């Protein structure tokens, strides 16, 4: 029947419920704040993720990647620079801004974390990074994209994900390269994006960059969060008949959108290019099944990429999460290693020492190279040069097709309408 049988995994349920109870019990038993269990010296790192609510799915897939990275580092002898100290990950729920602020304070004040990784949504990251800055606790942002995060002169904040503008710049360049290679004209572009933080910024960046790329934006279609139907957008697309559609949204809305694209028999002349988390989320590809065949998605990494170690990392992740390592799970996994490297070089748990070590980060090899050619930070804490790659989805798997030096497959362009 279904492609792969997904029984209600009662064992993960048992682990999850017991884990919670045990976790709660242990912490409650020790009273509050909790004291580290007696064991070789250990250091705590806080991870702010949306574990409930609308983005719970991405939050939980990132959590699995963090657990994987921490177990691997601890198994390999822990943090050499800190006398083999084991990393203890402390997860905190950052579904909204208040929660993120409260939990950031809790991680710093009562959990005593030496660094924080997180917050997934830009709003939560913007406000919680201010709290970490004041407490002198380094804060690594491997998932939230807002430019403001590193534009405010905060010295303890480091961001490994690219700025929004690159989605527009790299996305437009990819479309032009693919069209040039296929010898097809590319002029008109339409946008289909959700009316949320990510969507608004994507709209702004594409409107700014498309003219300079020689493409004209025919229409910027905005749909509300939690849409119940897309007919009006599809009718507009039919009328505008753009060559390419750039789109951004959450997994929930994309599933509905692609069903209605088929129902109303619409497909752009050349192809559909999805940018950001929602479109590169493996569960979205899984849910869409055949409907996603040929869809081009743009993000900073995909398992099927011509980079050393990429496939192995992804297989290890699939063994745990039963899906590809996408949706920021990859950037956060690399983030843990980048932080570990800095901790080793800092040789102390002092926030300022770690910050200075992070600032001198210059990694061209090691685990993060599965994703980044070179890991370093500019004076604002941004990782320059992190470019985006394009991948084409077929049978639920996304294989990199652009740029040429990373591609594992030849792109099919223009893309036939999925049947």
């Amino acid at each position, binding site marked *: 029947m279904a492609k792969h049988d997904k029984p209600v995994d009662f064992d993960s349920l048992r682990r*999850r*419920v017991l*884990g*919670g*109870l*045990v*976790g*709660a019990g242990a*912490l*409650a038993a020790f009273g*509050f704040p909790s004291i580290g269990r007696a064991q070789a010296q250990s250091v705590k790192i806080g991870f702010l993720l949306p*574990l*409930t609510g609308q983005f*719970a799915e991405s*939050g*939980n897939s990132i959590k699995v990647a963090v657990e994987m990275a921490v177990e691997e580092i601890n198994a390999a002898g822990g943090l050499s620079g800190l006398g083999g100290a084991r990393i203890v990950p*402390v*997860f*905190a*729920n950052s579904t*909204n*801004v*208040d*929660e993120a*602020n*409260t*939990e950031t*304070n*809790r991680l*710093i*004040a*009562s959990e005593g974390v030496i660094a924080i990784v997180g917050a997934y949504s*830009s*709003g*939560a990251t*913007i*406000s919680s990074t*201010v*709290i970490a800055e*004041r*407490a002198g606790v380094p804060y690594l942002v491997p998932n939230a994209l*807002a430019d*403001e995060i590193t534009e*405010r*002169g905060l010295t303890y904040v480091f961001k490994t994900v690219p700025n929004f503008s690159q989605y527009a710049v790299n996305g437009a360049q990819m479309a032009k390269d693919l069209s040039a290679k296929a010898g097809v004209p590319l002029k008109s572009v339409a946008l289909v994006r959700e*009316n*949320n*933080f990510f*969507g*608004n*910024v994507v709209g702004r960046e594409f409107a700014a960059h498309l003219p300079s790329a020689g493409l004209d934006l025919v229409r910027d279609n905005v749909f*509300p*969060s939690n849409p119940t139907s897309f007919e009006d957008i599809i009718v507009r697309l039919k009328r505008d008949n753009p060559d390419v559609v750039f789109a951004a949204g959450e997994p929930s809305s994309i599933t509905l959108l692609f069903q209605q694209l088929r129902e109303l028999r619409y497909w752009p002349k050349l192809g559909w290019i999805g940018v950001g988390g929602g479109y590169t989320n493996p569960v979205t590809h899984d849910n869409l099944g055949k409907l996603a065949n040929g869809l081009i998605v743009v993000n900073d990494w995909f398992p099927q990429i011509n980079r050393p170690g990429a496939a192995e990392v992804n297989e290890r992740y699939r063994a745990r999460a039963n899906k590809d390592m996408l949706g920021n799970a990859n950037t956060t996994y690399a983030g843990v290693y980048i932080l570990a490297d800095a901790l080793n070089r800092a040789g102390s748990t002092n926030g300022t020492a770690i910050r200075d070590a992070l600032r001198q980060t210059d990694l061209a090899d090691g685990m993060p190279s599965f994703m980044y050619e070179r890991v370093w930070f500019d004076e604002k804490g941004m990782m320059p040069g992190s470019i985006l790659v394009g991948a084409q989805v077929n049978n639920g798997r996304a294989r990199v097709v652009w740029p040429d030096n990373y591609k594992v497959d030849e792109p099919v362009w223009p893309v036939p309408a999925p049947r």
Partner: protein
Amino acid sequence: MKLSNWLDWQLVAGCIVILVAAGIGVSSPSEYVVQVITLGALYAAVATAWSIAGGMGGLLLLGIISFFGVGAYVNGILFTKYGISPWINLMLGFLVAAALGRLIAALTLRFGLSEDYFAMFTVGISQVLKHLLLNWEYAGQATGIYITIIQDDFWMMSFVSRKPYLLIGLALLLGIVVITYLIQRSELGYRLAAVRLNNQAAEALGIDSVRTKTHAIVLSAGLSGMVGAFYSQFSTFIDPAQVFSLATNFEMLLGAVLGGRLTIIGPLLGSAALKPIQDVMRGLMGGGADALYLVFYGGLLVASCLLLPKGIAQYIQNWHKRHYAKSAPAEKQALAGEIK
């Protein structure tokens, strides 16, 4: 100020709770405790403000979040775009939210909307405001507004440490508690009681029930707007989904209902207990088993609504009445007295 009087007793108890909270907050080294107490104080402040219309006025004002959100955006916009001091924005937040309250009162009370429709209307308005702001370019649409605080500046209500915000928040709460105390002792308090208990009888005695209910809504709205204005300065980032969230709305209501919405100290006790419990529970269980926290919190909501229908303070009031009030002479022989 006789402690035998239930109102005075509540005011004293309320002040003690606020002073104790201030003491704990200021002395505590951890910013986490300061953050939890300040949020608890903000929720208690809105719950107390709500109890003017929702408790004393007996109005089913279900959507209080609209005014909170409007206040938050008043400060958000005026502070970031025009550099107007948040101290002034507290007042402007009050006025704008009060005006919205006045408009809603005029629209709903005139048509004699039944209770349930009034409740649904107030909830509906909050979501209309959310979607309006989501599509309003000037106010940052979905990207919201963030407030950067670089260094201490009292006039701009900007502080690096969280403690000044704790004190301002508690001061707001104290102010609103005192206002409700004064209202209960004022003629407005009597008029509200009359309208709440029997609208028809109140009208027959010359009390304009529409005007009285409007006063209650305007006060509840204005005060909630003021708290919202302070909230935006405290949380440094607001967006429509956050400040118009129905989840937050019902959490604030719950504090008032569980605490006892007819009393001054009820909403304060309810929120002071509920918000920290929620934050701590999320801290303990949220990280570990994500959804387990939701199950416990939902169960707590249902259980407390069932076990404390009139709210904690109502039971304290009954104890207070038994303990303090002097016994009243038997009524029988009184009526035998002849007419003077």
